[in-house]
């Protein structure tokens, strides 16, 4: 243990503890800007670049960055001496001098860490006037890059390269012109970006934001010729409340349905319905592959990989083109929902495809890209027209003077609103595979499950694996969240180091609950955990907890689809993947 004093207060910490952490332990606030940590997920961005957290260490020539300086025995640290406060203030003034002062219209306003820092330091004017950085704005289908606002904290870079191993973003250029950008300052769309959006989640300012589709949705609602249908993903209902002052993990499913109805959506449905459908398709596919493999068919590829997560799909298309036949061909719940809405439901309602506008509310920014993919369109008309994030929905609700807290609890509309507990847990890491296991077990063994909770599949470890006994047959399941973990797991599979029957991958930390479309958690992973806990609570409270028992799903197969993985299913609910390694545009090539 190391003894030191911070602001004359004795503190004892373990060796290797930074001054910042020691100060936090002692209840002393040191402001930070570039520092970003996902606790428990082995991710810390501390380039020591912003210099906001500088502190005075007695005997040291210059100020030390608290986030990146380890405590030493006998150290005397001063976090708010005149020298420190002056330096810190000057540094923030400098950052502000190269930052557009457009807080009034900035998408991050209110959530901006630079804004709160400026307020904390009471900065009222900026003494330094001079050139400001200007860059071409980059609009991808999911993410807007407005690098005029970039403060070079490098959080996005760390998320992109360390946590996700995507490698789309890195520091380019030098000096004042230094900025984070894709290679050759190309557009994000031409880079290996998966649109997972964790850069957006990490960005402390408005440099990286989601593409806002709220206006298009409002226009659709206002168009009398259109029937506007909305679906909401499971992770949204446990996070939306945060935007209205509720505690993380408060379940607002019913209030959300009420809000959507009041916003003018004609039908308020649930993506969970499609999640149950996904289990039917993916579970059947899994069992098919396992049975074939057990029968000795060498052409069968195992493990089966889940394909609900669009960031993950983009990732393997870019990075594992040799394994494109490994993931399940089942579409994601969002796309299954769109496909069913614009076929089965349209038919049922006597509506024309082009008169239906299908909107999804997602915890995700990659879903914006997913719904625009060409293979999810029929004659140019997309199955899902617009995808809004949880944050966009919250703003939308506030804009219409609705307070979620005051709204009554309402149900989803029928028939695409009925779902099971298995579908709800899609929103957290391990949830999809648990839902699949519940159904696969019963179908495979022909026995009823005594206990539907597979707690061995739950948790927040980046890579997990578990064995499930399918009545004597050992099923090995792998789970990864965070694309770096997915990469490791997949490389193990590719190198033959590990054998799995099924692997679930979610791109975001904690799965969709930690998705990039969710309310900003500013690195607080406890919030992610609380959202996940809420999903398991919602699941536990559901009368039906296995997808194949969803009566509306059964009706859907009876009335329309026939059987899982049947002919119509393949047409509507399955997809294929592309090698995108050559889609990365390199200038001059």
């Amino acid at each position, binding site marked *: 243990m190391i003894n030191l004093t911070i602001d004359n207060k004795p503190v004892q910490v373990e060796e290797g503890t930074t001054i910042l952490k020691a100060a936090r332990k002692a209840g002393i606030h040191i402001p930070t800007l570039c520092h970003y940590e996902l606790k428990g997920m082995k991710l810390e961005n501390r380039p020591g670049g912003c*210099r906001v957290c500088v502190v005075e260490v007695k005997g040291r020539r210059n100020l030390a960055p608290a986030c990146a300086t380890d405590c030493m025995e006998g150290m005397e640290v001063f976090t708010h001496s005149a020298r420190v406060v002056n330096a810190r203030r*000057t540094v923030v003034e400098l*950052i502000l001098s190269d930052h557009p002062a457009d807080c009034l219209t900035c998408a991050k306003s209110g959530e901006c860490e630079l804004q709160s820092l400026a307020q904390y330091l009471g900065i009222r004017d900026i003494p330094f006037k001079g050139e400001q950085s200007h860059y071409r704005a980059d609009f991808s289908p999911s993410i807007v890059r407005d690098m005029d606002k970039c403060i070079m904290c490098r959080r996005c870079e760390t998320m992109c390269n360390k946590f996700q191993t995507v490698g789309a973003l890195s520091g380019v250029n030098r000096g004042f012109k230094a900025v984070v950008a894709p290679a050759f300052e190309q557009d994000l769309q031409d880079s290996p970006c998966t649109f997972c959006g964790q850069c957006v989640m990490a960005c402390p300012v408005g440099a990286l934001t989601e593409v806002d589709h709220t206006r298009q949705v409002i226009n659709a609602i206002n168009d009398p010729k259109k029937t506007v249908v909305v679906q909401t993903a499971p992770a949204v209902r446990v996070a939306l409340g945060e935007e209205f002052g509720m505690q993380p993990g408060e379940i607002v499913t019913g209030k959300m349905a009420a809000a959507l109805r009041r916003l003018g959506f004609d039908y308020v449905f649930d993506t969970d319905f499609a999640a149950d459908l996904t289990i039917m398709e993916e579970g059947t596919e899994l069992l098919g592959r396992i049975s074939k493999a057990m029968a000795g068919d060498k052409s069968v590829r195992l493990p089966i990989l889940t394909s609900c997560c669009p960031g993950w799909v983009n990732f393997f298309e870019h990075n594992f083109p040799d394994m494109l036949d490994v993931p399940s061909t089942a579409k994601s719940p969002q796309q299954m929902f769109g496909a069913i809405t614009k076929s089965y439901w349209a038919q049922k309602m006597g509506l024309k495809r082009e008169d239906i506008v299908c909107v999804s509310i997602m915890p995700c920014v990659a879903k914006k890209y997913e719904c625009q993919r060409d293979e999810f369109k029929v004659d140019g008309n997309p199955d899902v027209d617009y995808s809004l994030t949880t944050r966009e929905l919250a703003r939308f609700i506030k804009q219409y003077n609705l307070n979620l807290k005051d709204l009554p609890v309402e149900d989803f509309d029928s028939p695409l609103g009925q779902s099971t507990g298995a579908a709800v847990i899609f929103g957290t890491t391990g949830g999809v595979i648990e839902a699949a296991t519940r159904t696969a077990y019963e179908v495979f063994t022909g026995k009823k499950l005594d206990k539907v909770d597979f707690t061995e599949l739950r948790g927040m470890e980046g890579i997990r694996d578990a064995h499930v006994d399918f009545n004597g047959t050992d099923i090995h399941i792998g789970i990864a969240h965070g694309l770096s973990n997915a990469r490791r797991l997949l490389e193990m599979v590719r190198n033959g180091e590990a054998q799995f029957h099924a692997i679930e991958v979610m791109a975001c930390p904690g799965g969709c609950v930690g998705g990039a479309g969710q309310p900003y958690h500013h690195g607080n992973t406890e919030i992610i955990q609380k959202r996940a806990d809420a999903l398991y609570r919602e699941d536990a409270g559901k009368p039906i907890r296995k997808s194949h028992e969803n009566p509306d799903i059964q009706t859907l197969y009876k009335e329309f689809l026939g059987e899982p993985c049947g002919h119509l299913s393949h047409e509507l609910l399955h997809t294929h993947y592309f090698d995108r390694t050559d889609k990365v545009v390199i200038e001059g090539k």
Partner: protein
Amino acid sequence: MHVLICGGTGCKSSNSLDIIDNFRTILKEKNLQNEVQVIKTGCFGFCEKGPIVKIMPDNTFYTQVKPEDVRRIVEEHIVKGRKVPELLYMNPENKEHVSDSKHMDFYKKQIRIALRNCGFVDPENIEESISRGGYEALAKCLTEMTPEQVIAEMKASGLRGRGGAGFPTGLKWELCAKNKADQKYVICNADEGDPGAFMDRSILEGDPNSIVEAMAICGYAIGATKGLVYIRAEYPLAIERLRIAIAQAREYGLLGEDVLGTGFNFDIELRYGAGAFVCGEETALIHSMEGQRGEPTLKPPFPAVSGYLGKPSNVNNVETLANVPVIITKGAAWFRTIGTEKSPGTKVFALAGQINNVGLIEVPMGITLREIIYEIGGGIKDGRQFKAVQTGGPSGGCLTAKHLDTAIDYDSLVAAGSMMGSGGMVVMDETSCMPAIAKFYLEFTCEESCGKCSPCRIGNKRLCEILEKITSGNGTMEDLQNLRNLAAVIKDTALCGLGQTSPNPVLSTLDNFWDEYVEHVVDKKCRAGVCKKLMKYEIDREKCIGCGKCAKGCPADAISSANYIAPGHKLSSMTIDAEKCLKCGACISGCKFGAISVK
């Protein structure tokens, strides 16, 4: 017999050309013109005691010779063979006259250790290097010394890093040697980036074998088998010669496996840098070698613990390494006889600017600026006044006349507000504008900052902008205050050495030339006549005859006829519209009457 007379600028201005004439006349008079040759030479570098006359072959060195002294020298020395004592150089310490120039202290002003072979050996022939004792230090280490002894010798020598910061080299080796690892690296930092500094290039081009040898010695000492030279791609000749040296050393068994039959393995590879200044910082250099973005990371961990590819690595600059073999062969005690207590040895400087003998010099630590400038450098060009000397490149500061007699070493330079840096030394006279000099260096830093930390990325840019404001006549006293505050904060908060030292040119000029800054801001005047925007061209209407030649030559149509006719003139005089004037100076060079001046 030869009479050598200094034709350097300094001596010329004290009539050395007349001395030459006198010699020729008097020798002819004595009919000795065929026996004795009179030669004008380049600068002896001893300008303080000029004009210099040297008689060969007996090496007699006459100082402060006046034209009228020539007759005595001819009659006494040349004819009768008796030296003229009062013209001989007098040793200032014991007041004795020195007759043979080889015994003059003056020659101790430059001692070539790092540059010992530069200009002597063919760098592309290892045999020439060996004939001058090359690789003997390595052989001595491998056969007679343990790695611990090598490190102990290095520590005892007190050699400090010549790249700028002056960290003790022996200690650095020891730290790296302590860390156990399956692989360690010896890295030679040949990413010389200070504008105006080129000693590392000169060493690599002139004596690459000394670096190869030193790296192998370091490898032996710290337990590394692999050496890497990080060299900028803009140094093709240095790269080529280094490659040749490495190949030849391998061929001779001085590199590679089983070096000198001792079982020691060591090999060297080259890594090329794209010439980023910040990559001279060791962590940035390592990242660049790894293929990462060349930007520094925080220390600790130091490279000695986790360097190249996460392995313990020792990074030394070229000039530092060039000293190593000499220390091993001649011993630490010998090395310590040169230089000062805390900074033993020599330092190579690239002497540049408004000085007569621009060049690469190697001087013992502890020498004064005065000796460098007036004795080695041959004084200020065209007899102008010395104003300042900038040391340490963009990280250093400006020293003034009051520092002329300061003994130069790492610590004294820092105390004086500058730093050793890699050894750039730019001499300035009254034609240099100090705020403009500060701006020049800041512009360089702005270009070369990696952009990682805010104070360096944005702060230096703002410093530069404030300096631009000042040098274009728009500065205020508040700007001067901001300049000082901001510079101090950058120094206090920047991440790496580049950022922490980047405000030095500003701070040192503010400290030493405050009046000049105030003049720019309050009087809107640049006394050096450098800041164009502060200049005003004026026509003396009494001198102007109104010929209009200036107006014809003016590219900006800024000159027109005024209403004033000077007495005795027929035409009205000309006047300059300050708004339109570009300050190009075309009018001045065109005016035959000297009527136009710059204010």
